[in-house]
């Protein structure tokens, strides 16, 4: 089950905590990857660690022209087809809404939501031709529940859910599924910076009693990318240790 041999995938934010776990998970199931990230050196190191014939494509997701070029670059590097797109890259610029600067709002919406739209728009073309595609966007539990200090981030993540549902309806007849995975709190650079007191308060809200791991998210992505998940579309798979049940 869930064998991805022969499939190609583009993963954004692949050198980050969750992104690298997703890339490793897809590669372990046999997919050939184009890994993307903003830091070319870090990305290249990650690609080298992955081994195999994966390719690294550095891209600044806040640059619209660079984003529009990313899918064509990936298709070319992956031998002319793209089966799976994983919109994983995300940034935070936390602030109380009343203090939030325009650029804090813009930057988060641009990278987390607009780039995802641009990438899906571009990826839909080769996927429609191939009559096969899997689009998986990494959203967040806070897109569903909200979180103080994260109006921009929560809006961008909720936006991904709506975007995915609309696209799922547009593309279902072409055997292209569009889904989201919503992590709860996962051990990553993003959660490492939380103050200790906030971390323990957080754990109190998680029935599983622990933060999640990147591998937990990767497993959900592998499932949604697989041929076996072909009848699942427009859904959000919540992977959060039970902290929000929706």
């Amino acid at each position, binding site marked *: 089950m869930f064998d991805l041999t022969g499939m190609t995938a583009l993963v954004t934010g692949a050198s980050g905590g969750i992104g690298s776990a997703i890339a490793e998970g897809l590669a372990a199931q046999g997919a050939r990857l184009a890994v993307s990230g903003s830091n070319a050196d870090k990305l290249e190191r990650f690609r080298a660690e992955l081994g195999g014939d994966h390719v690294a494509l550095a891209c600044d997701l806040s640059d619209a022209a660079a984003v529009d070029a990313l899918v064509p670059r990936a298709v070319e590097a992956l031998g002319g087809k793209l089966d799976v797109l994983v919109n994983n890259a995300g940034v935070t610029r936390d602030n109380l809404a009343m203090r939030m600067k325009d650029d804090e709002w813009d930057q988060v919406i641009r990278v987390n939501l607009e780039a995802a739209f641009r990438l899906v728009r571009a990826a839909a*073309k080769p996927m*429609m*031709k191939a009559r096969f595609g899997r689009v998986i966007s990494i959203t967040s539990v806070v897109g569903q529940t909200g979180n103080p200090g994260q109006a921009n981030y929560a809006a961008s993540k909720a936006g991904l859910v709506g975007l995915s549902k609309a696209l799922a309806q*547009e*593309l279902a*007849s*072409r055997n292209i599924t569009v889904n989201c995975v919503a992590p709860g709190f996962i051990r990553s650079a993003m959660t490492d910076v939380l103050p200790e007191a906030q971390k323990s308060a957080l754990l109190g809200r998680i029935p599983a009693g622990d933060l999640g791991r990147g591998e937990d998210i990767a497993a959900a992505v592998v499932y949604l990318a697989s041929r076996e998940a072909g009848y699942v579309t427009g859904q959000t798979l919540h992977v959060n240790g039970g902290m929000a049940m929706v």
Partner: protein
Amino acid sequence: MSETADRVKKIVVEHLGVEADKVTEDASFIDDLGADSLDIVELVMAFEEEFGVEIPDDAAEKISTVKDAITYIDEHKG
């Protein structure tokens, strides 16, 4: 019948799975040939590939019949 018309009709037959004799020049993709909006997008992509032309979105929106497609391609192919 022009060479362009033949190739356009062949693409339409293949993509929409309709009988060749239904693909007249006056046939509307949506009203007569059962295409939906996604089919139109795919047809435009196929025309672009077949003829090496670029059909921008505002032009694509005006292509509603087989004849519209043939005319646009004849005017723009290299």
